[in-house]
C-alpha cells in the first residue's frame, strides 16, 4: 500500500513492544510488524480461534494490507502491515466505571484462555489492551498474540494484576474508587502498595492472600533472579500449559465474583430532584432532538454531565456515536449496566470531572492522550445543566466555560447549552455556599453575550418555568 509522506503519524501509545507499531494514516489505523511479528500474524490468522474471536467482535477487526507494497519508513524494519477497525472514541481505564473495568478484565482473560487452548498466548496483560465499542469491550492489541511456549507462565500476569485486578479489588473489597490510582500511574498499582492497604483482617479477603501478599513476597524474594532463569527453573519443575490454563480460570472466577454496588449518591437521584417541571422536560427533549437531527446523523456527540444518560439516549437515536461523560463513578456504573441491559450499543459512558478532565499521561505526557485532544472533534456537544456547576460550583470564569465548551466542537459543529438563571432553585442552592456577590457576571444576558460573540445563534428557548434558557449555536461555521 502507498502511504504518502507526511500522512503517516506514529501512535504515541504504541512503542513498548518494538516488534510492532501502530500508525495513523488519514482515517486508517495501521500496524506495522517486523519479520517475527509478521510470522506470528500469519500463524494467528491460520488458527480457528482468532477469526472466531474477531467475528464475535471480541477482537478488533484486522486485515493484512497489500503485503508487497511500501511500508512505513520511520526507521523500523517492517515486514508487513495490518489495518485495524477504527475505535469510535478512545478511552482510558481511569475513565471507566467498576463494571466496565471488570468486564474488560473478563474479556482479557477469555481471550487469553481461548488463545492458550489454541497454542497462543498474549505477551502482556494490560488494561490498555482493551477499548470500547459503545458498551462492548474489545481487545485491540493484536500484536500481543504470540505462539505459547510450553512450560511458561503468563508474562502479562503482573500487568494484569496492576492495571486490572488490583483496581477491582480496591473497589470491590474497600469501596475505594480505583480511577485516581490508575490515572496517577500508567503502570497501575504495585503489589507493595496493595500489601500496605490490605493489612490486618483485610489480608483474608478473596484474592488478597495470593495475588497481593504472596505475589508481593515472591517479588521481594526473587528480585535478584532473572526472569529467564526462573522460566527455565519452572519449565524444569514441570510447569505446564494446563497449569497456565488453571491459573487463568482461577483469575476469571475471582474477577467474576467481584462486585461493587454503592448506595445512592447525590448525583444518582439528580434527574428526579433537579427541579424540572414535566413541561420543561418535554420542551428540553424536543430542543435537544432538533439540534442533533439538524446536525444530520453526527459521527460524534459529547454529552457532558450526562447523569443518568437520558439525553445521551435521545441523541443516540439520531447519531452514530455518543460519549456520555459524568463525574460520579456510581452514576456511570448504573448507566453502563442499564445500557448493556437495553443492548444500546452506540453510547460510551465515561467517568470524568469536567473541571479536572483527564490530562495526557505516560511517556512525555502523550502516551495516553488527554481528554481535550480526543474530544475536540465533536459534531454536537451537549452541556445541559452543566454551566452553573462549573461557573458557581467550581468558580470557573464564565468566558472560560464558554471557550472550553466550544473548543470541543469540530468546525461547523453545534453546541447545545443550558443556562440556569441565578434565580433557579438549583443555582440558588450552589450560590448559597458562596459569599454574596462573588459571581456578578453570572447572568443570562452576559452568558448570551459571550456565547453569541463566539458562535452563531441557531435557536434559543426559555423553558416554561422561566429560570432556564437553552441555546443551540454553531461553532466556527
Amino acid at each position, binding site marked *: 500500500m502507498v502511504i504518502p509522506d507526511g500522512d503517516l503519524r506514529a501512535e504515541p501509545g504504541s512503542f*513498548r*513492544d*518494538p*516488534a510492532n507499531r501502530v500508525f495513523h494514516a488519514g482515517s486508517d489505523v495501521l500496524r506495522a510488524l517486523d519479520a*517475527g*511479528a509478521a510470522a*506470528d500474524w500469519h500463524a494467528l490468522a491460520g488458527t480457528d480461534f482468532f477469526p472466531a474471536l474477531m467475528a464475535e467482535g471480541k477482537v478488533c477487526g484486522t486485515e493484512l494490507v497489500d503485503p508487497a507494497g511500501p511500508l512505513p519508513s520511520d526507521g523500523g524494519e517492517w515486514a508487513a502491515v495490518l489495518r485495524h477497525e477504527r475505535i469510535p472514541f478512545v478511552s482510558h481505564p481511569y475513565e471507566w466505571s467498576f463494571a466496565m473495568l471488570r468486564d474488560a478484565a473478563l474479556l482479557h482473560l477469555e481471550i487469553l484462555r481461548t488463545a492458550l487452548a489454541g497454542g497462543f*498466548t498474549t*505477551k*502482556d496483560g494490560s488494561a490498555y489492551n482493551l477499548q470500547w465499542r459503545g458498551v462492548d469491550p474489545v481487545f485491540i492489541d493484536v500484536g500481543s498474540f*504470540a505462539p505459547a*511456549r510450553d512450560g*511458561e*507462565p*503468563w*508474562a*502479562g*500476569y*503482573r*500487568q494484569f*494484576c496492576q492495571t486490572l485486578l488490583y483496581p477491582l479489588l480496591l473497589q470491590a473489597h474497600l469501596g475505594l474508587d480505583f480511577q485516581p490510582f490508575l490515572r496517577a500511574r500508567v503502570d497501575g498499582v504495585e503489589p507493595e502498595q496493595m500489601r500496605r492497604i490490605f493489612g490486618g483482617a483485610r489480608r483474608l479477603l478473596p484474592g488478597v492472600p*495470593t*495475588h497481593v501478599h*504472596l*505475589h*508481593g*513476597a*515472591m*517479588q*521481594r*524474594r*526473587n*528480585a535478584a*533472579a*532473572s*526472569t*529467564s*532463569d*526462573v*522460566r527455565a*527453573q*519452572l519449565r*524444569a*519443575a*514441570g*510447569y*505446564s500449559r*494446563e*497449569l*497456565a490454563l*488453571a*491459573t487463568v480460570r*482461577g483469575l476469571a472466577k475471582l474477577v467474576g465474583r467481584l462486585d461493587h454496588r454503592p448506595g445512592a449518591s447525590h448525583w444518582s437521584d439528580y434527574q428526579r430532584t433537579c427541579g424540572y417541571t414535566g413541561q420543561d422536560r418535554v420542551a428540553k427533549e424536543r430542543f435537544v432532538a432538533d439540534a442533533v437531527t439538524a446536525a444530520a446523523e453526527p459521527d460524534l456527540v459529547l454529552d457532558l454531565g450526562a447523569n443518568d444518560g437520558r439525553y445521551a439516549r435521545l441523541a443516540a437515536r439520531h447519531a452514530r456515536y455518543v460519549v456520555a461523560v459524568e463525574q460520579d463513578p456510581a452514576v456511570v456504573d448504573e448507566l453502563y449496566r442499564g445500557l448493556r441491559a437495553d443492548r444500546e450499543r452506540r453510547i460510551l459512558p465515561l467517568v470524568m470531572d469536567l473541571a479536572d478532565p483527564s490530562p495526557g499521561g505516560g511517556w512525555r505526557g502523550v502516551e495516553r492522550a488527554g481528554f481535550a485532544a480526543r474530544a475536540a472533534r465533536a459534531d454536537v456537544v451537549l452541556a445541559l445543566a452543566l454551566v452553573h456547576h462549573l461557573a458557581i460550583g467550581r468558580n470557573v470564569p464564565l468566558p472560560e466555560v464558554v471557550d472550553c465548551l466550544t473548543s470541543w466542537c469540530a468546525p461547523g459543529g453545534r453546541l447545545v447549552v443550558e443556562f440556569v438563571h441565578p434565580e433557579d432553585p438549583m443555582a440558588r442552592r450552589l450560590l448559597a455556599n458562596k459569599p454574596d456577590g462573588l459571581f456578578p457576571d453570572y447572568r443570562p444576558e452576559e452568558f448570551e453575550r459571550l456565547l453569541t460573540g463566539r458562535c452563531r445563534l441557531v435557536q434559543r428557548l426559555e423553558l416554561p418555568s422561566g429560570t432556564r434558557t437553552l441555546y443551540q449555536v454553531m461553532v466556527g461555521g
Partner: protein
Amino acid sequence: MHLAYLDAGSGSLIVQAVVGGVAGAAVAAKLYWRRLVARFRRQPTDQG
C-alpha cells in the same frame, strides 16, 4: 526471544505456579527444592 519485551517479574512468574492449585503448588515446591539442593551442592565446591 520475541515474547520477552515485557519484564514479567520473576516473583510474578513463580506465584502463578502457586495459585494454580495442588499441581501448581507441587511445581513451586519442586522449584524451591531444586534451588535448595543446588545451593548445598555448590557450597562444598565453593569451599574446596
